[in-house]
C-alpha cells in the first residue's frame, strides 16, 4: 500500500514537475520574445484593408505612436483616412497588472468617450480587430503552457497556450501563440472563446527594424464572420523622440 502510494506520488511529482518545466519554458519563451521587442517608443503609419468573403470593401489609414513598452506604455492611434474619420483618435494606456484604459476622441461631436471594459470585444470601426486586440499583451497578464512544436510559413515555431489571469479582463478564454524559434518573433495568435477559435492573427513580412524583428503585415481573420482585416506598417521607426505630454486626453483632441 505504502509502496504503491509512493510510486503514484513519484509519478505525480514527475508529471507535475514536467508540467512546471513546460510552463516555465513557455513563460521564458514569451518573456524572451517580449524582451526582444522592448523599445523606448514606436511610430508607424498603418494601412487597414478590410475584406469580406467577396473581396476588399474598405481602406483606412492611421498613424500610431507609442511611448514605452508592453505593460508600461501609452499609445495614440489617429485616423488619417478616409476623410470622414480623419481626426478620430484612440488613447490607450496599458498597465502591467490589468486591462488597459482606452478613450476615443470623435471630432464630429467634439467629445471623448471612455471605452468600457465590456465594450472591448466590439469590432474597432467595423474592422476585424476588436478594441482589446489593440492592447499590448504583457507577459505577466497570462499563464502559459507549452503546447508543442509547429511550423508557420515554413518557419519552426513554439506553440504556446496562454490563458488570461483573473486580473486581465478579456473576451477570450485562451489563445494559442506561435513564436518563431529563429527570431522569437510572433508568427500567429489564435484566440478562443471557450473551445471555439474566433479570431486568428497572422504575422508576415517579418523584418529586422533597428534590431527588432517586426512583422510589417498583420492579418486578423474573424473566423465566425469569415472576414479579414490586413494591417500594413509603413514608415516604421523605433526609439523616436516622443513626449509624455502627447499621450493625454487633452492631446488627442489636437489634430
Amino acid at each position, binding site marked *: 500500500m505504502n509502496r504503491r502510494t509512493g510510486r503514484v506520488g513519484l509519478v505525480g511529482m514527475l508529471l507535475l514537475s514536467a508540467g512546471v518545466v513546460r510552463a516555465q519554458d513557455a513563460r521564458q519563451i514569451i518573456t524572451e520574445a517580449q524582451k526582444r521587442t522592448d523599445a523606448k517608443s514606436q511610430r508607424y503609419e498603418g494601412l487597414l484593408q478590410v475584406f469580406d468573403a467577396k473581396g476588399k470593401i474598405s481602406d483606412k489609414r492611421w498613424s500610431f505612436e507609442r511611448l514605452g513598452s508592453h505593460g508600461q506604455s501609452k499609445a495614440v492611434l489617429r485616423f488619417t483616412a478616409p*476623410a470622414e474619420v480623419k481626426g478620430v483618435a484612440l488613447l490607450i494606456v496599458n498597465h502591467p497588472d490589468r486591462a488597459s484604459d482606452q478613450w476615443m476622441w470623435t471630432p464630429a461631436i467634439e467629445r471623448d468617450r471612455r471605452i468600457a471594459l*465590456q465594450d472591448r*470585444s466590439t469590432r474597432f470601426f467595423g474592422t476585424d480587430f476588436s478594441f482589446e486586440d489593440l492592447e499590448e499583451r504583457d507577459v505577466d497578464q497570462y499563464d502559459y503552457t507549452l503546447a508543442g512544436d509547429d511550423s508557420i510559413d515554413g518557419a519552426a515555431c513554439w506553440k504556446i497556450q496562454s490563458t488570461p489571469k483573473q486580473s486581465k479582463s478579456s473576451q477570450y478564454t485562451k489563445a494559442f501563440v506561435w513564436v518563431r524559434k529563429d527570431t522569437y518573433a510572433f508568427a500567429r495568435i489564435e484566440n478562443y472563446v471557450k473551445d471555439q477559435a474566433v479570431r486568428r492573427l497572422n504575422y508576415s513580412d517579418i523584418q529586422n527594424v533597428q534590431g527588432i524583428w517586426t512583422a510589417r503585415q498583420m492579418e486578423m481573420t474573424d473566423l465566425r464572420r469569415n472576414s479579414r482585416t490586413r494591417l500594413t506598417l509603413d514608415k516604421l521607426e523605433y526609439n523616436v523622440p516622443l513626449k509624455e505630454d502627447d499621450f493625454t486626453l487633452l492631446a488627442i483632441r489636437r489634430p
Partner: protein
Amino acid sequence: MTTKATSTKATKTQNTRRQYWFCAFRVFVCFVVWPTVAWGQSLTQRGFLEGTLVGYPQEAPNDPTQVVDDFLAREEVFASPTPWLRLAGGLDARANSHDQVEDSWAVDFTDRTIRRPRFSIRRAAATLTHGPFTLDAGKQFIRWGRADVVTPTDRFAPRDFLNVFDNELLGVTGVRGTVETGAGTLEAVWTRFTPSRVPLVDQRWTVLPPDVPPPPGPLPRVYPDSPQVGIRWNHTGAGVDWSASYFDGNNYLPNIDATGLSFPPMHMAGGDVALPTAWLTIKGEAAYFASSSTTTDEYVLYVIQLERQTGEWVFVGGYAGEAVTNLRSTTPVTFAPDRGMTRSFVGRAAYTIDVNRSFALEAAVRTSGDGEYVKAEYSRAYGQHWRATVSAVGIGGHSDDFLGQYHRNSHATASLRYSF
C-alpha cells in the same frame, strides 16, 4: 438722394469688409501656411460637401412647404508652425431652398444671425501648449458633460435649432486655459456670449399656442454684454471618470415674451460621472440652475444613462428628469429643448452591419405619455469619399407638450456627403 447715399455707404462698407478679409487672409498665409510649408511642420485639413433633402408629409399651419433642400460645404485646416503652437481654421458655406440662410454674402464670425449665415467662420483658434498648460484662444468648441441623452452641464455649447431635432453645435469665441495633472484636468473658460439659433417664426418648427397671434416678423433680441465664465475639474481614472463644474453667464436659450427674446443670467453648479462596470457603463449628470432674473425658473436637470455594447450592437438608454425649485416664468411661449427633453425615457440602439454600413434607432417617450419621438437611420459609405444616409422621424403627442407640439413635423431625410 438718400437711397444713393445709403448705397454708397453700403458699397464702402462692403469694400472695407473685403479689405478686412483680404488682410486676414494674408495674415493667415504669412503666419500659418508659409511657416508650416517652409519649416516642414504638419498641415492637415478635412472637409465635406453635403446635400440634404427633407420631406414632410404634412403641412404645418404656419408653413405649407413640404420639401426643403439644404447644402453645406465645410473646410477645416489645422497647422502646427511650431511644436508649441497649433492653429485651427474652419469655414462653412450654405444654401437652402426654404429661406433658412441669410441673404448677405458677408462672412459671419459671431453666429448671432437669425438665419444661418451663407458664409461663416466655424472655428479660428490658436492652441499654445507648455508642459501641462494649454491655452486655446479664439473661436472654438468647448464641450462639458458626459451624458448623451441631455447634457445639463454643457454650458459652452450653443446649438443651431432651426430644425429642432437635427441640431448642430455652434462655436464660441473666447479663451480656455487647461492645467493637466496626473489625475485629471482643471479648466477655466472665458467667452463672449453666443446664443443658440432658434426656429424661424414663419416656419414649421415654431409652434405657437392657438391664442397667441403669429408675430409679423422676427422678434427683437437683446444679447448680453457680460462674459460667460466657467471652471471645471475633470477626473479621469482607472475605475471612474467624473467632473465638477461651475458656470456663471447667461442661458443660450431665450426667454420669450411680447417684447422679444432675452437671454437670462444663469448660474450653474453641476457634475457628471461615468462608472464602467462588468456589464454596463453607468453615466449620470446633474446640474442646478439659478438666475437673478425674476421671470426665470430655477431648477435641477439630471440624467441617468446606461450603456452596453454587445457584438455589433450599442445600446444607450436612460431617463432625463427635471425638478423645478422656483417656478417664476409666466410666459406662454418658451423654447427650451434641454428642459423639454426631460421627464422622458430616451434610448438608442445602433448596429454596425459592416465597415461601411450601419443602422440606428432612437426614441424618446415622455413619462406623461404626451409626446413621443422615434428616428430610424441607415447609413452607407461608398469608396473613400461618399456616404449616403436616409432617415425617418416620427413625432406624435399633444400640442401642449414640447415633443408633442411637433406632431405635424414627422419627416424623412436623405443626405449625400462627399468628404475630402
